[in-house]
């Protein structure tokens, strides 16, 4: 489930809500042709974007999920069976639990490390500070797919292959979060920092009592983004995790493919797994969409 998709959905929800609201008020603008055209266009775009997910949801309710004609896209009656089979019989609940734990640990770790890094970069003076910040940004050029070969070597050499450590620690640093937090800290008036300095309020106390409470919206937004990012990780868990008991949902999906008795791909099961995997991040993005939008906005003070 991607953030842009959710942003479009969210905007559509907000727009329709305000349009509906304006119909109640006598002084509302009448819905003219241009507005209707815009709404139709947005609805069409939303429909196109959501279509694959809709199809997945429908297929997950069918027996085998083979779709050859449009008529096959009617909802089937196997929803209960499929979901129960995926979750319990095939142990998909375990994958989802692992994904959840992994994502939570990664989010907490990223927040801690990035808060401290942003604090230092914004409020301290030290040699080569700009070079250090550039270096941190430079790591944005090295996402997991770029570095997973040497990372694999390192982790297995340390004997930490196939551990919870291995699927969480490599993700704990986040240049994006550091950057976002840095921009936010820079928007906090210098006089607040100076008042604290005059009062002998140490940096950690300042971080906990002032910076974090003042960054609540941004922190929630960043947490949601990071959670979705961690939840969606496929390549690294695939490579480093061998045992099913530790595997995450994204990789576990592929295990659902071979569950058809006839040797064909059990698409309905795969779709079931996909929908299951989609639900937690979707829920978070919908619940926290306002702080999320605040994080995306460039703040000018």
């Amino acid at each position, binding site marked *: 489930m991607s953030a842009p998709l959710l942003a479009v959905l969210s905007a559509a929800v907000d727009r329709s809500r305000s349009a509906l609201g304006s119909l109640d008020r006598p002084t509302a603008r009448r819905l003219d042709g241009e507005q209707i055209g815009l709404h139709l266009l947005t609805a069409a775009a939303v429909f196109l974007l959501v279509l694959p997910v809709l199809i997945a949801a429908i297929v997950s309710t069918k027996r085998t999920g083979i779709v050859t004609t449009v008529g096959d896209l009617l909802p089937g009656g196997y929803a209960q069976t499929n979901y129960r089979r995926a979750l319990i019989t095939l142990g998909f609940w375990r994958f989802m639990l692992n994904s959840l734990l992994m994502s939570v640990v990664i989010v907490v770790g990223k927040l801690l490390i990035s808060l401290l890094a942003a604090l230092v970069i914004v409020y301290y003076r030290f040699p080569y500070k700009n070079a250090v910040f550039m270096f941190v940004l430079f790591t944005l050029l090295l996402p997991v797919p770029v570095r997973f070969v040497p990372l694999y070597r390192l982790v297995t050499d340390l004997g930490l292959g196939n551990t919870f450590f291995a699927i969480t620690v490599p993700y704990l640093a986040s240049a994006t979060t550091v950057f976002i937090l840095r921009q936010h800290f820079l928007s906090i008036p210098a*006089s*607040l920092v100076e008042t604290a*300095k005059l009062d002998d*309020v140490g940096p950690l106390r300042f971080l906990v*009592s002032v910076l974090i409470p003042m960054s609540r919206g941004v922190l929630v937004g960043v947490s949601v983004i990071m959670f979705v990012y961690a939840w969606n990780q496929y390549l690294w868990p695939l490579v480093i995790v061998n045992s099913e008991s530790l595997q995450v949902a994204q990789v576990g999906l592929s295990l659902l493919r071979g569950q058809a008795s006839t040797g064909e791909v059990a698409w309905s099961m795969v779709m079931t797994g996909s929908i299951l995997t989609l639900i937690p991040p979707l829920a978070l993005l919908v619940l926290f969409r306002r702080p999320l939008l605040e994080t995306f906005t460039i703040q000018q003070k």
Partner: protein
Amino acid sequence: MTDVSLQDVWKRYDDGVLAVEDLSLRVEDGEFLVVVGPSGCGKSTTLRLIAGLETVSEGTIRMGDRDVTDVEPKDRNVAMVFQNYALYPHMSARRNITFGMRSAGSFSDEEVTQRVEDAADLLDIADLLDRKPAALSGGERQRVALGRAIVRDPDVFLLDEPLSNLDAKLRIRMRSELAKLHDRLRTTTVYVTHDQTEAMTLGDRVVVMNDGEIQQIDPPQRLYDYPENRFVAEFVGDPAMNTFPVRVEERAQPATDGAGRYVATHAGVDLPLPDAGGLAAAAGDEALLGIRPEDLHLPPDPDVGSFTAAVTVTEPLGDSLLLECRIGEDEFRAAVSPRSTIEPGDTVELAPDPARLHLFDAGSGEALYHSAEGARDAEPSGIPDPDRLA
């Protein structure tokens, strides 16, 4: 309670900007010192140097008998009030006031509560203490910021343009509240502002700064009556002092009207200059004559030393009538009685109060002569007092 002294302080920023140049200043114990000047003159930098938020490039700063030049801000026992109040938006007023108190000093819980209550009563914010800054008006926020400074019982209060963000009426009210507060607490205070009215009304002494240098330090009235250079003369006082280029000449014949040996000539007008120090040295040279608008009167009959001018604009202020006048190429202002019936386009006869004339060096702007210094020692002049006329 301490005195603060800065000796030969220079502040040069990394990008080469010279903010403060060879500044020496002493704030007496319990004094309310105002530092005033235009934007960029170095007054805020000076305040921040005293606070320790900036480090000096050269020079020393002492508080009492301590050399604090290299001491951290938290160890200097100063409290600062910022122009934008610097209140933490997510904390209540009470918490804003007490945050940092336990770090700054060793106050027990009861002491803290007591101090907060005392400060709240003093500033009349007792029922606002549980509100967040967003729920407070500008004046209330200002008082919370003051409360935060007071409860720490510092040696020095530092106020950086605290009234600039308030509307005009509130500013006037807060000015008198600050004055009363200072009377009560008598803490050494350094107050920075760009508003010369605030400077005049609040300061025990006023420091006028320009371009990183101190121009003059004096009590307000002295600053007004005896400005040491052209900058101070034109900065202090509203409306500003008029200046004319003149030539100081010695009279050909001895004076017959008892008005002194020298005159200032300009554009055909001769203004007698009462005797006082500096005239002999200025004789024969170009200089700048300074007269304040309120020291130009409408004389009852044409006088020696009066001149004619054309009125271009009249500005009724209520307590006076401001005339913008013109002689030849020079424009200047005169403040006359509010109920005079003068219209733009009229010609008026104006006479300066001879006890209120100033001369400044045409090049450096240094003050050469204040006629009041002579008048102080001399007999009262023969010019009638316009306010006593029927």
